[in-house]
């Protein structure tokens, strides 16, 4: 991945204030948009932003919103997202998006103001130990104490955020450093010697992988967000690999879109709410090729029963991901794109795809597919949430569409029933599971792609966590569509209470729901409500046609559960399928040991 640093021929060295340096460094790193919220300790930087128009500032309503917007911006463009916040509460409000970006490997550069160096440690107004608080939730962070180091640190921050396994970084800039004058240095290509991510895979290992794959009778490709982070070329190579090998392919939540959902080898998402065919194939395969994924607990189910009879190949840029949860037979350390390039080349040169040998495997997969694990009972009086997503997909798939989500049942239904053909079109909080991610993320995506159709598939509970960013969307004329599957419950919490706690619905019902239509209007947006399946299409079409932010209150069946499901502590071949999920089966799905798991 390139760090996106521009060469600047004019002004090799020049004197400027710290605040000027910040804006100059943003420009030099190719930044066009910054999401932020002003405050005392960043006023000098805001003053510089005011006096130029190369870098556009997007004012949010809460710093968490700035972070998620920058994440959405980053995921949909492949570039670093940038946020700018003040000291103290500004920085602490940034913690959630920082951790979110850390777990989902999103390049996020967060600039924070800090009290002047002379006041650090004195419990000054709006002081907090920003580098201390953000140390475990960033890839790296810096406190800048000398204005002459500021420019180099910001350049390094962009480099660290965007290279290797991408992630969030924080640069904490005391107010006196923003006022002080020093020498600005442009971006240089001399990274620190201790940070040298390995991108090129070991050829011997790749050869071993090709050999193993060529001999496979029941292979599977299991891909993740690493393919998307590696850039569009990696997705292209992945498609080529699937065509060459004829292998079936599944993906994690984070990897959706790297391989097109319309591709014939696509088996759907795997994991806790993945398809039956994907999970059964994972369990029964003889060779598993994990590409840019990390064997997360949502994916593996019970580890002791995870794909017991397969040899595993794991391609990852992060050495700590390899052999962390699952033993790997052929570990390949490197950037997915580079490794796939070698893998595809070696496959072409040495391996002959014996697609006939895979016939029995594909026949077996066809049987699993025939189980139709995403089926649900249609209802003509009430909108089923799955139906709502299916109609949304049908009516928007031919447009330039980007989807974000909040966290919960609606997120899983979106992953199951909205189908992605391209990478960078799907923004969701996977690792951290941050309710409230989707609305500000949609804002960020819309800023990056002003003419696209950006939809936040939301739940009624999640969306209220960052609803205030509606105001930011209206201000910046970002016509995001907030499509709420409103069942009046924290649906996934309720589902787990049914699974684990005798259906005692402790505080998962929202008794006082706002009128979302009036709320949209109050913000200066457009509100739509739909309660009947036969009115849904027209309502969705209205949503698409309105050229301003829309809140769509889609009233859905209140007690629908999200299936299929691997209950906690169970294995891939112990899925709970929708047609078997009676109340009794749901109540007994998780045993005492599984109860303790998340």
């Amino acid at each position, binding site marked *: 991945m390139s760090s996106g640093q521009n060469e600047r021929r004019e002004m090799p060295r020049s004197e400027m204030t710290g605040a000027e340096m910040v804006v100059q460094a943003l420009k030099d790193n190719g930044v066009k948009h910054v999401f932020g919220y002003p405050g005392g300790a960043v006023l000098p930087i805001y003053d510089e932003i005011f006096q130029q128009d190369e870098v556009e500032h997007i004012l949010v309503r809460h710093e968490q919103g700035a972070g998620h917007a920058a994440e959405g911006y980053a995921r949909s463009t492949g570039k670093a997202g940038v946020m700018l916040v003040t000291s103290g509460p500004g920085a602490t409000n940034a913690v959630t998006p920082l951790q979110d970006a850390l777990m989902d490997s999103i390049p996020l550069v967060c600039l924070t103001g800090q009290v002047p160096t002379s006041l650090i440690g004195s419990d000054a107004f709006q002081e907090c130990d920003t580098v*201390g608080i953000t*140390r*475990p939730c960033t890839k*790296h962070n810096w*406190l800048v104490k000398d204005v002459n180091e500021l420019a180099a640190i910001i350049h390094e921050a962009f480099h660290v955020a965007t290279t290797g396994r991408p992630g969030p970084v924080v640069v904490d800039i005391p107010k006196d450093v923003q006022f002080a004058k020093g020498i600005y240095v442009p971006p240089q290509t001399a990274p620190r010697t*201790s940070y040298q991510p390995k991108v090129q895979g070991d050829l011997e290992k790749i050869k071993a992988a090709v050999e193993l794959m060529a001999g496979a009778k029941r292979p599977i490709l299991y891909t993740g967000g690493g393919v998307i982070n590696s850039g569009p070329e990696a997705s292209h190579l992945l498609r080529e690999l699937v065509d060459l090998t004829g292998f079936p392919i599944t993906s994690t939540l984070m990897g959706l879109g790297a391989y097109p959902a319309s591709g014939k080898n696509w088996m759907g998402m795997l994991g806790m709410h993945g398809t039956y065919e994907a999970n059964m194939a994972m369990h029964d395969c003889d060779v598993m090729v994990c590409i840019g994924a990390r064997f997360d607990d949502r994916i593996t189910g019970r580890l002791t029963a*995870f794909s017991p009879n397969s040899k595993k190949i794991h391609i990852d840029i992060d*050495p700590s991901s390899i052999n962390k949860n699952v033993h790997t037979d052929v570990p390949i350390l490197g950037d997915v794109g580079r490794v796939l390039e070698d893998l595809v080349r070696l496959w072409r040169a040495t391996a002959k795809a014996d697609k006939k040998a895979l016939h029995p495997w594909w026949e077996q997969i066809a049987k699993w597919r025939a189980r139709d694990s995403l089926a649900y009972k249609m209802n003509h009086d009430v909108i089923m949430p799955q139906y709502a997503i299916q109609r949304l997909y049908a009516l928007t798939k031919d447009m330039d569409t980007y989807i974000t989500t909040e966290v919960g049942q609606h997120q899983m239904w979106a992953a199951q029933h909205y189908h992605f053909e391209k990478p960078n079109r799907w923004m969701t909080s996977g690792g951290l599971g941050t309710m409230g991610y989707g609305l500000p993320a949609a804002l960020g995506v819309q800023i990056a792609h002003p003419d696209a159709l950006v939809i936040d598939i939301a739940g009624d509970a999640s969306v209220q966590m960052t609803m205030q960013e509606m105001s930011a969307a209206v201000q910046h004329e970002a016509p995001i569509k907030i499509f709420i599957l409103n069942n009046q419950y924290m649906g996934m919490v309720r589902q787990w209470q049914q699974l684990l706690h005798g259906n005692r619905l402790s505080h998962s019902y929202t008794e006082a729901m706002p009128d979302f239509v009036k709320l949209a209007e109050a913000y200066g947006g457009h509100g739509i409500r739909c309660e009947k399946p036969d009115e849904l299409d027209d309502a969705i079409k209205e949503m698409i046609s309105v050229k301003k932010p829309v809140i769509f209150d889609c009233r859905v069946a209140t007690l629908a559960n999200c299936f299929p499901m691997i209950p906690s502590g169970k294995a891939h071949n*112990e899925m709970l399928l929708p047609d078997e999920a009676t109340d009794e089966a749901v109540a007994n799905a998780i045993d005492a040991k599984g109860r303790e798991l998340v």
Partner: protein
Amino acid sequence: MNAQHLQPTGSAYFIAKETERPENHTLSVLVDNEPGVLARVIGLFSGRGYNIESLTVSETEHEKHLSRITIVTRGTPHVLEQIKHQLERIVPVHRVVDLTVRSHELGQERPLERELALVKVAGTGEARVEALRLADAFRASVIDANTEHFIFEITGKGSKLDQFIAIMKPLGLVEICRTGVAAMNRGPQGM
């Protein structure tokens, strides 16, 4: 359809892991000597639930601003490998060497490990004479004394220091300060 799960799984992957026994390993970590670097290392251990049995840190190459951190940790081989990789992810970390693994590769039982302790013992009469006699046997040197106390400086393996301290306990032990383990591998090769 779910009959299969009643059979025991044939996975070899986790059988090995469960029978793995925790071991003590000594890691050498070469880092840029910059503010917060020790907090990054310690935070990693506490955040991920790894053990620290001993930790020492000091600048070793002033011109290059390099510090060397020596950590004695305890875990199964699988966890120890994770610790190494997690440490390597820290941006200012240059190198991580598991000295224990390295010593095995070199055909040695364990790396060279030394620790220094200052041990204050107060007393008079027979106990005082006995303390001095034992200190001599342990090759501890007296670095401060008056008529009622000694401060001994003792260097050696941790187990030797443990033993010395245990012996001093009934002889008027007042306080102890230990440096933690400094370690490197035998032979001409660097880390």
